Every structure is written in C-alpha cells, then in structure tokens.
C-alpha cells in the first residue's frame, strides 16, 4: 500500500477517507484535521492561553503535542486520581512527555493530587461516599480543570475527546433518548457564565485509531493499559459496536457524529441558547464560588462528606 499523496510506502490506511499515508503525510493530515476543527468551531487563536487536560493516555498527550507543534500556547493539567500502579504509570508518562517535549516549547505542567486534598484515592473516596467511581472521577476532574483554568487565567480548556468518544456518547444519549444532553455535545462550549472556562475538543475529527497511530509514529510514550475502573463500561461497549460497523462501512462514525453536528448547527444559535439556559439556572457555590445550580456545588458536597469519614 502506497501513500496517496507522495506514493512512498504507507504506514497506515484510512478507509473512511479512501486514503493511505506515509509518516510525514499522515502527520500533515492529523495537523490539518486539528487546524480545521479549531478554525471551523472558532475554538481558539494563537494568542490564547490553552489548558490541556492530560491523563497519560494517547489522546490527551497527542493533543498537547499537536497544539505545541502547531504553535499554540498550551500548558497542561494532570489530575492524579490515586488508582494504585495505574496512576503511578500514567503520572510518569505525563511527566516524561512534559520534560522531553513540552518543556522545549516553554509549556508548563500543573498537577493536582486527589489524595492530598481528599485524604484518599478515587476508588476509596467513591466507596466512602457511596457513589460510582467513574461519576466521582468525573466530578473531580471537571471541577479541578475548571478551577485551574479560571484561577490561572487560561482563555480555553482543551480535552482529548476524539471522534470515537463523541460518536459513542451520542449513541448512548440517543439510545436512552436523553435529548436534554445533546446541546452540550458540540466540540466547542462557550464560557457561558462567569466562573466557567470555555471548553473545546480539537480532536473530534480524528478517530481513536488515527490518534494511536499518531502517538506510535511520533514516539509518544503513553499508557496503553485500560483504566481498571472502566472495565466493562457502557461506553466501551458502544465503541466496540461502532467499530464493527465502521469496519464493514467505513465512514459510519463520522457520518453519525458530524451529521449530528450539522443538524444541530441548523437549529437555533447554540452558544446563545446555552448561555441563556446557564444564566437562568447557575449561580456561585456558597463554598467555592464555582457556578452551580444548587446552593453548594457537587464537588464541595462530596469533599464535605469525605472529610467526615476519611481519617486525616
């Protein structure tokens, strides 16, 4: 198989684009897809300060790498969840990338350790407060990324959600007819109210396989193992189903998600609608001042409960 562009030996075939690329042309393709995503969704400019949420996985480290190589001002935040050796390994991968690659671009890595603040790792914390681990993890990550973005005056927060993540999430929401969540499935969410950072997903045009290939080809050392907390999750099942469909009919995932985005864009101007909705229901948490619909936000409630049961 030869590269569609330069006719040398290809290293990856992309059936959904009816193309194959060598390493150089594939890197060009990936960078071009991210540039198109950023420009078409008005995610950020070269002058903006970006905070990338990194986990040690391929998507977030690839995102940090791509943004830096495209000339964006991108720092990163890693949240150490305290999941035994999994967190130790992912933390080491992030630190290695920060020192070997990001530092030469003048980028900074921020760190938040759950155990330091809560007195326990995520698994123990979830058990103590009787909540599912993934839900506890989600609350903590969203809160800390938003907190650091606001406190350190970043213009935008970027996550490594890819086409597979978004297609699987859309499938889950459609299967359960959770229409109220569809508004927030776009790749660019505005800073709707004071205290909320703008959130963007610059990888939504790239599949999980393409991002893994980018990481392998560019020698990005990422954690290949699954998060032990995610085993058997619904999202993994949706991804598996979509990948079977994709193998039989290349382009299925992009038709599903991009088609959804196109339909959404023809509706009301999403940013205005979302801002209006948020303004009508959100106000500062009485404990930490981050926006919430309740008197005290879910993160502060969770930490308050943890402090009553975790020995300090």
């Amino acid at each position, binding site marked *: *198989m030869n590269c569609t562009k330069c006719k040398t030996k*290809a*290293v*990856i*075939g992309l059936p959904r684009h009816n193309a*194959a690329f060598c390493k150089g042309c594939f890197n060009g393709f990936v960078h071009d897809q991210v540039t198109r995503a950023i420009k078409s969704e008005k995610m950020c400019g070269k002058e903006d300060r970006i905070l990338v949420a990194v*986990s040690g*996985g*391929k*998507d977030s480290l690839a995102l940090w790498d791509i943004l830096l190589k495209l000339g964006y001002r991108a720092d990163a935040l890693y949240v150490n969840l305290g999941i035994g050796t999994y967190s130790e390994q992912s933390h080491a991968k992030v630190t290695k990338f920060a020192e070997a690659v990001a530092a030469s671009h003048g980028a900074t890595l921020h760190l938040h350790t759950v155990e330091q603040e809560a007195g326990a790792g995520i698994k123990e914390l979830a058990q103590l407060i009787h909540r599912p681990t*993934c*839900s506890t993890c*989600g*609350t903590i*990550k*969203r809160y800390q990324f*938003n907190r650091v973005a606001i406190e350190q005056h970043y213009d935008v927060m970027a*996550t490594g*959600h890819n086409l597979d*993540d*978004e297609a*699987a*999430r859309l499938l889950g*929401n459609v299967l359960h007819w*959770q229409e*109220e*969540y569809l508004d*927030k499935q776009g790749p660019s969410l505005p800073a709707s109210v004071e205290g*909320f950072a703008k959130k963007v997903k610059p990888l939504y045009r790239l*599949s*999980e*396989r393409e*991002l*893994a*290939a980018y990481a*392998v*080809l560019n020698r990005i050392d990422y954690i*290949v*193992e*699954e*998060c032990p907390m*995610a085993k058997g999750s*619904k*999202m*993994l099942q949706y*991804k*598996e189903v979509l*990948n079977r469909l*994709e*193998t039989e009919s290349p382009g299925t995932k992009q038709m599903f998600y991009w088609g959804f985005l196109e339909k959404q864009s023809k509706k009301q101007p999403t940013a205005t609608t979302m801002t209006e909705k948020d303004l009508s229901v*959100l106000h500062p948490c009485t404990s930490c001042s*981050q*926006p*919430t*619909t*309740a008197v*005290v*936000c*879910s993160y502060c*409630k969770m930490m308050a409960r943890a402090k009553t049961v975790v020995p300090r």
Partner: protein
Amino acid sequence: MQVQLSHPARTVEVKGPKKVKELLRELNLVVEAHLVIKGDDLVTEDEMLYDVDQIEVRPVISGGNQAEVEAKAEQKPPTDSSST
C-alpha cells in the same frame, strides 16, 4: 511469529507468512480497533508478516475514561452535576 497482545498482556505464536489483515482475522480482532506494529514500525493491512517477525497488536480503545465520566455524570438529573 511471536505476537504480543494486550488486555490482558500475553504472547501467542502464529504461523506465517500471512498478511496483517489475515492475522487480525485469525485472532478475531477488528481492524478499526487495533494497530499492528512490526518491530518499531507501524504496518498497513496488506503487509506480509513472516515467522521471524516480532509483532505487537495494540488495541486503540483506551480507558473509556473521558467519555465515560461525562456520560455517567450526565445521566443523572440535570442538577448541580452539570455545572462542575
């Protein structure tokens, strides 16, 4: 050829020569969810693999992490969970 697999980590012996796509089919693995690495190099589905080759079949679906946490959090009633 020696083929290294993940989730769980293990090594299996597969008789060559055969193409990458034939190897994946034999292992009952979906192309869209895997990369095949020969030595240090990524290879396409039509690449021929031989008995002397060291092969890694790497799954590309990691974690379920980010999408999972959002979806699970959002499956609750839209109270304060959507705001933090």
